[in-house]
């Protein structure tokens, strides 16, 4: 892991783009693992069809990762001969095996224990040298990653990397990349990017309960929130987490909860309350493989149905999905603004694949326009009409503490003044009010994005957009231009924008990572695409490869 991190950071320091994802074995901690790193002079948004280079530190249980680390005859497998024979699952790729002595038999026990990562650093140093990353960038990366761990440890690791770099030329491999262009870039994961966006938008309260793969999002957020005077509260469960957030939001602080599938399922009752009582809140779901506990650490996009349709009763909400790791920042920021301005829950559907991919991004200078919640109730007759029915379905929600505007947030069917009521008139009026907020919601240019031309369109969301775009580039290069349409707003569907994006398209292919073709059926059910549209849907845990999409299209 650390080897991958050093490699990626060194490459980033040298001006390359890159992305790292990680694989872990079954053991909770300390078992086998693998870091998958790509570097390029171009931005990277998806895992590749194949890897060029495979460096084995040891072979222990590595075969379980074979499906996730595609290799072929053109791949090079670097391994320490002392680690033993290449296991069958890796060897069957027919990749060329190159020997490299990495372990230092002379290292004293203390060195191996205390500085145990030296083999890793050797590998990192060697790979950096192979692609042409300067030693100074490697050193800087090591200093950054081992910051605070002491000079001794850093020196030992640098020593390992230097040894690796020295050994690299002996391999006579050519993986040298073109010269990179230096620019101010960020090394960030999707989870961190979502957290950052939420902070930017003013979120200062987070109610949460740990759950993989969303925990690192809140762990990253915790110290930052603290610095900004905000609060992160660990609830006793997800029911507490979402209700804590809802309370804080009612009290005037933009608030959020962060979870993954199982926690999300537990939250839908209170989600309905946020709809009915019209309280803004953001719920981030970093999707993992389901159903039930599923595979906690692996990706899937199978909570689409729950996000759009979860909760009893008619409970309209807004569902967004980030378009890329970089876009996580803007989508999160936008989500908060939508929630605050429409006074309803906004769900952000990310997934493990986006969330835990550490990526070099070009930070965008453009940010969503801030939108605030309306708190300035008009001079009130008593009682204050929090839920007034009128031309504008969005009605002011004064902050508690405001004199003369006292109101009760109400989850029962209620009158304009927020008192429980059970007549047909009030019930329908309030349902219409809430529905109108969503119907009239116009995301403008935030509806999604569209690239390319041609009469075939691949429609995707979240982490399937990257591979779809990579597939499109490949197809275009082969003379088959297609469009890629990325939906940021999954619900309510941006019908007009989508229709424009689909103009002139004769074949629509909806690509998503779940078994039920959840987005596809949603799009058809809402008449956003015709029943003749095609579906490419399969569950996780493997990420889509560009070739998988490209080969379906042609």
């Amino acid at each position, binding site marked *: 892991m650390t080897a991958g991190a050093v490699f990626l950071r060194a490459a980033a320091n040298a001006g390359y783009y890159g992305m790292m994802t990680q694989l872990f074995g079954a053991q909770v901690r300390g078992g086998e693992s693998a870091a998958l790193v790509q570097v390029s002079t171009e931005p990277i948004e998806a895992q590749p069809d194949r890897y060029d280079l495979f460096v084995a530190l040891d072979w222990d249980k590595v075969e379980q990762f074979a499906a996730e680390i595609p290799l072929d005859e053109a791949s090079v497998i670097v391994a320490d001969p002392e680690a033993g024979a290449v296991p069958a699952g890796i060897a069957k790729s027919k990749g060329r095996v190159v020997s490299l002595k990495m372990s230092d038999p002379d290292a004293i026990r203390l060195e191996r224990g205390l500085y145990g990562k030296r083999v890793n650093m050797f590998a990192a140093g060697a790979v950096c040298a192979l692609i042409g990353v300067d030693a100074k960038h490697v050193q800087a990366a090591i200093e950054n990653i081992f910051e605070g761990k002491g000079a001794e440890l850093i020196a030992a690791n640098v020593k390992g990397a230097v040894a690796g770099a020295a050994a690299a030329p002996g391999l006579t491999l050519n993986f040298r990349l073109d010269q990179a262009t230096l620019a101010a870039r960020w090394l960030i994961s999707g989870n961190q990017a979502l957290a950052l966006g939420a902070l930017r938008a003013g979120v*200062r*309260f987070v*109610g949460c309960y740990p759950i993989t793969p969303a925990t690192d999002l809140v762990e990253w957020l915790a110290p930052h929130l*603290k610095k900004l005077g905000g*609060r*992160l*509260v*660990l*609830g*006793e*469960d997800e*029911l*507490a*987490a979402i*209700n*804590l*957030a*809802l*309370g*804080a*939001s*009612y*009290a*005037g*602080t933009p*608030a959020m909860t962060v979870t993954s599938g199982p926690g999300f399922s537990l939250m839908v*009752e*209170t989600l*309905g*309350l946020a709809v009915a*009582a019209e309280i803004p809140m953001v719920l981030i779901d970093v999707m993992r493989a389901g159903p039930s506990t599923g595979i906690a650490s692996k990706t899937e996009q199978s909570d689409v149905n729950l996000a759009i349709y979860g909760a009893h009763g008619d409970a309209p909400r807004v569902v967004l999905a980030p378009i890329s790791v970089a876009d996580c920042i803007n989508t999160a920021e936008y989500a908060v603004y939508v929630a605050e301005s429409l006074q309803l829950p906004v769900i952000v559907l990310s997934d493990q694949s986006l969330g835990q991919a550490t990526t070099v991004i070009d930070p965008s200078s453009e940010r969503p326009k801030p939108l605030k919640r309306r708190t300035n109730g008009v001079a009130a007759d008593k*009682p204050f009409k929090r839920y007034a029915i009128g031309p504008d379905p969005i009605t002011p929600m004064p902050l*508690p*503490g*405001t*004199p*003369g*505007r*006292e*109101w*009760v*947030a*109400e*989850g*029962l069917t209620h009158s304009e003044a*927020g*008192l*429980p009521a059970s007549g047909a008139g009030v019930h329908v009026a309030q349902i219409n009010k809430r529905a109108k907020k969503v119907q009239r919601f116009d995301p403008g240019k935030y509806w999604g994005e569209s690239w390319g031309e041609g009469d075939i369109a691949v429609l995707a969301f979240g982490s399937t957009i990257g591979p779809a775009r990579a597939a499109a580039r490949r197809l275009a290069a082969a003379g088959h231009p297609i469009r890629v349409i990325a939906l940021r707003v999954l619900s309510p569907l941006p019908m007009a924008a989508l229709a424009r994006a689909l103009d002139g398209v004769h074949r629509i292919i909806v690509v998503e990572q779940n078994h039920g073709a959840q987005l596809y059926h949603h799009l058809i059910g809402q008449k956003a695409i015709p029943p003749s549209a095609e579906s490419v849907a399969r569950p996780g845990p493997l990420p889509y490869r560009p070739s998988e999409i490209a080969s379906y299209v042609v």
Partner: protein
Amino acid sequence: MSDAATKPVHDQALCVFAAKDFASGAHPVWCPGCGDYGVLAGLERALATLGKPPHEVVLVSGIGCSSRLPGYMSTYGFHGVHGRALPVATGIKLVRPELEVIAVGGDGDGYSIGGNHFIHACRRNADILYVVMDNRVYGMTKGQPSPTTEPDWDSDIAPGGIGLRPFNPLAIAIASGANYVARGFSGDPDGLANLIVDGIRWPGFAFIEVLSPCITFRPEQSEWKKVVRPTSLTIEQDRAAATAWCSATTASAWVSCTVATARRPRRHCSRKSRLPISNANS
């Protein structure tokens, strides 16, 4: 016990509000004679005594007859879903510490579906007051046994009685780390108002269990008013009461909670907080 919490209740300087200033004017859906009217009165009086203006108070509740209370007061309110009043109240208080946040509800809401939030609120120790109107029944859903219901109480859903030992809110609150634990009676709104004032002033989580009869599904509870003996206000005056109080606040607090002790005003079981107050994690 801090100074704030032992201040005399009727501090005239503060009394710029009357109890009626805290009434919303909405007509309660409660059955005539329901104990919850007394709790409403007690709350109104306590807030008047404290002199907090209505807009600086937030009442938070879940679902149940008792949980309808916020709608009957002129303060801010949050009538959420069943069982979740405490996390909502905690969220409000943590971001707006200057507001007076009071969670209210019933025994079903608080001890059954809300039981987990209850025990964790006790340890989280946010500076909120929690008032439970315990009628030992699910009133709103028309008469099923709640966690505090006597094991032999007959009902449609549990013919012959539920057969379970009742949940002991005071004992569990104490075991969970609550510092202010008291019990009141809806039939004594003034005594209750005293407890509420104390509880609000208490610098941390304060829990008041209120015996509040459901005259519709537990008509026998209208007898409570006869069983609740008036005891001397200052227990020090009364050796027997003092002894009883003592044992009630230590080991056996959780077995000796009978209706007879209900009206002892300021029956706090307080332990010095071992941790800073309002530290509902950073």
